[in-house]
């Protein structure tokens, strides 16, 4: 038995380390560790709750809107603030395009190189590549000339002898299965997606000044004013620009991302039985309709892969353990705490750096172990599609069944590395097609003379009760995200975020149950343990976002550390 360490896991957000035991050419056990900690929730204490969104937004610059959304929802929930319909629709558009752009970047720039061997693209025949592309998509750029130009660029780059970010990778690894033409097609679209992503995300700049980190969220609504007769507000001109960009987003997803995903997946069908993981799925649901609040994608819980049994999601059933995390509970080890009552005091007990290995029998990560009804849960696009599928959502059922049919696999294929990656594509497609509907609803509202984007009744903290508590849920690109807040005397008493990558990157809990990454890695074949490409495939299929996952809160409302002034 050999022990291998992959640190850093690259092409993710944040700092992740995987330690794995290998025997018989397969991963026999695995440990997921996050190696970076900032303590933002502790920093939030005693601050103005209306500022919290701006702080929590800095949990992550990749999923750059999600913690803002969860945060303002938590404060609005605590103070019982209803937001205007226009604000809800603007949020839906911002969330929608965030999902779409994030999924495409993940597929091409973070995940594709696990499946696509760029060096093999050099050997492709551009004419045959064009034929392959034409057989799966109507995308107008897919010509032989276009692929030849990409290949020439690539050749010129390689001829320089310095591969920059492509150096030292696992090129030529036996686990790469794509023919040269498919590699060239994907490489061309890797470059094209780089251009596309910075265009479509301008929607965030129009509605919220910039991306990453749009600066527009407000407790009670949004900071972008609406007035068709003003050049300083959301007007017809800007709405049409958003519309154009949404069409561009949708077209690329339909004609490039989805065909590429299906083409690549068809060469890797064995990955439909690898990387299954814990088999429990949690979704908080998303995209509330204005007024009714009804969710376009439902919330729910599935246990032990029983997709016909979808239970409602209940925030009271969430608890976090720290038995293998570098924190300490005042009540001792072995117990999980609900986010409202949670507490965490950072206490590093790992090896002194530089180190070779972590002591995985003790504490080994900055990520806590969240559990739902004491079970580890997978969250993300697969979880939300399974919940929607099980809840009888016709649109989701049709989309999922269509993809399964095209790949010629059964529904059991969903519980896998490939299933996770395919689900992200389906999720992206559905949201790309739906987001223009919210824009149309917004335009409709404005046409009727409703320009309001903010409910200011409780903007002034003097209107707040002495104490309040609330939580905000958001189905982020990477899955179920929850923020919990307690407010006292107009200030944050405590704040806790349980985020998608906390669920997925979770270490073991008090009972020794593995987290989703850890469980999914068990059984993964490794052709060459010194080049663990297969580990990257399964880990990347979750789309890790580690800066998000690590946080700390002192829920006892202790005074902040005494301050020294020079």
């Amino acid at each position: 038995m050999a022990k291998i360490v992959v640190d850093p896991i690259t092409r993710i957000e944040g700092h992740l380390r995987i330690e794995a035991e290998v025997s018989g050419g397969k991963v026999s056990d695995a440990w997921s560790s996050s190696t970076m900690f900032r303590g933002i929730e502790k920093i939030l204490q005693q601050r103005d709750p209306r500022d919290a969104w701006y702080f929590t937004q800095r949990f992550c610059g990749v999923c750059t809107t999600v913690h803002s959304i969860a945060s303002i929802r938590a404060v609005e929930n605590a103070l019982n603030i209803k937001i205007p319909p226009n604000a809800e629709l603007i949020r839906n558009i911002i969330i929608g395009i965030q999902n779409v752009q994030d999924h495409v970047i993940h597929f091409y720039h973070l995940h594709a190189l696990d499946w696509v061997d760029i060096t093999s693209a050099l050997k492709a025949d551009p004419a045959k590549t064009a034929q392959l592309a034409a057989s799966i998509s109507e995308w107008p750029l897919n010509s032989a000339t276009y692929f030849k130009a990409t290949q020439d660029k690539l050749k010129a780059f390689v001829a320089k002898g310095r591969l920059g970010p492509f150096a030292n990778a696992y090129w030529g690894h036996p686990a790469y299965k794509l023919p040269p033409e498919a590699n060239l097609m994907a490489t061309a679209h890797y470059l094209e997606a780089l251009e596309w992503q910075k265009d479509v995300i301008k929607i965030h700049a129009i509605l919220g000044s910039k991306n990453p980190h749009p600066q527009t969220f407000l407790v009670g609504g949004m900071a972008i004013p609406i007035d068709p007769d003003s050049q300083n507000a959301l007007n017809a001109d800007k709405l049409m620009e958003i519309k154009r960009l949404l069409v561009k987003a949708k077209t690329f997803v339909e004609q490039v991302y989805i065909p590429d995903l299906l083409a690549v997946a068809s060469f890797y069908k064995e990955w439909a039985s690898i990387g299954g993981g814990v088999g429990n799925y949690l979704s908080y649901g998303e995209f509330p309709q204005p007024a009714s609040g009804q969710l376009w994608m439902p919330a729910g819980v599935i246990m032990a892969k029983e997709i016909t049994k979808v239970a409602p999601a209940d925030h009271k059933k969430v608890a976090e353990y720290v038995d293998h995390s570098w924190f300490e509970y005042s009540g001792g080890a072995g117990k999980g705490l609900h986010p409202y009552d949670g507490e965490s005091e950072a206490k590093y007990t790992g090896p002194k750096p530089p180190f070779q290995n972590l002591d995985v029998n003790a504490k080994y990560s900055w990520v806590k172990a969240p559990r739902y009804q004491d079970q580890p849960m997978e969250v993300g696009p697969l979880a939300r599609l399974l919940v929607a599928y099980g809840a009888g959502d016709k649109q989701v059922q049709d989309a999922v069944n269509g993809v399964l049919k095209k790949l010629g696999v059964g529904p059991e294929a969903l519980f896998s590395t490939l299933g996770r990656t395919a689900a992200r594509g389906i999720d992206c497609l559905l949201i790309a097609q739906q987001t223009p509907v919210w824009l149309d609803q917004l335009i409709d509202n404005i046409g009727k003379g409703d320009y309001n984007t903010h409910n200011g009744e409780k903007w002034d903290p003097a209107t707040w009760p002495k104490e309040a508590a609330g939580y905000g849920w958001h189905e982020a690109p990477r899955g179920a995200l929850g923020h919990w807040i307690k407010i006292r005397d107009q200030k944050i008493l405590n704040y806790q975020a349980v985020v998608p990558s906390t669920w997925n990157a979770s270490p073991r809990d008090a009972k020794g149950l593995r987290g989703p990454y850890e469980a999914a890695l068990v059984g993964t074949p490794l052709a060459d343990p010194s080049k663990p490409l297969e580990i990257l495939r399964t880990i990347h299929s979750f789309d890790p976002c580690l800066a998000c996952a690590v946080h700390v809160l002192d829920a006892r409302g202790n005074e902040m550390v005494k301050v020294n002034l020079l």
Partner: protein
Amino acid sequence: MGKKLADAHPDETGTELNLPRMLEERGVSRRDFMKFCTAVSAALALPASFAPKVAQALDEVKRPTLVWLEFQDCAGDTEALLRAANPTVAEIVLDILSVDYHETIMAAAGHQAEEALAKVVKEQKGKYIAVVEGAIPLKDGGVYCCVAGKAAVDTAREVCGGALATLAVGTCASYGGIPAAAPNPTGAVGVKDAVPNATVINLPGCPLNADNLTATVVHFLVFGKLPALDSFGRPLFAYGKRIHDNCERRPHFDAGQYVEKWSDTGHKKGFCLYKMGCKGPETYHNCPTQRYNEKTSWPVASGHGCVGCSQPQFWDTMTPFYHRLPNVPGFGIESTADKIGIGIAAGTAAAFAAHGVISAFRKGDDSEGAKED
């Protein structure tokens, strides 16, 4: 400094590399290239007529290596880089810089990735550019951020210490940023504090404007030296002027026309956001002119006040974000605005001096003008 990058790095292949030719190979026309040079000149606050000189300098440059380190970060500055204005060519310039290490984008992982970094540090000592994103925790031996089992502070000392120059991108790498906000649980600091002997240029902002990063690199290439910096280590070309002085809403401030409530008539008409907490009068950054996402917008233009994200320790000195600037004896006249700027510049300077033992600015602000709301 003072050494030209062009001299610093002989290309390994021994071939004279020529940027325009490389661009051509990548399908970038001379015209596009000149457009890029004009844009960079604008970012550097140089006249458009300067573009040919920029182009000439880039023509002559060889291919220096860049390594990008991420520590206590959120990858927001990396994402900003992906959205850079003039992206086709900006991406290519970074490509041409040979980005040999960048965790978020590189294909290699684990020890293969670390080997790539070690190779640069060993073989190109004093010749490569280091970029740092994220703060560096010093408390408890730096255990709060480890990559490949090494503490960030040790990696930073090794990599930044051996670099030609280090660009600290974003407010975290520049001054500690959000991890360093009170009570600074991990003892986070910026690069200059972690590696005092390194040559560091701070490019703060949350995130930084990638155009300013590109412009700084080009400044090296054109002039063969660092751009002039202010007392916070920021290039004057990007941080030399107050937001308030370049703000498109300044006439409304001078005329006493303010947004009083979100979504009110003044908000819709683009009045001044001062009363909603805008920190433009105390913030030095080129947002109003350079804007974001290919000049699409910037916070004030989209109806939200500036929060002062390019100022050291803004997380403590500029919060609560929706409270008005303190101690303003009235507004609507030019001289008052200038007093605000001078007063706050002194305040942030004090905060900067107090780095590492983070201040109680936000705790002491209960008496501020916010009660006027």
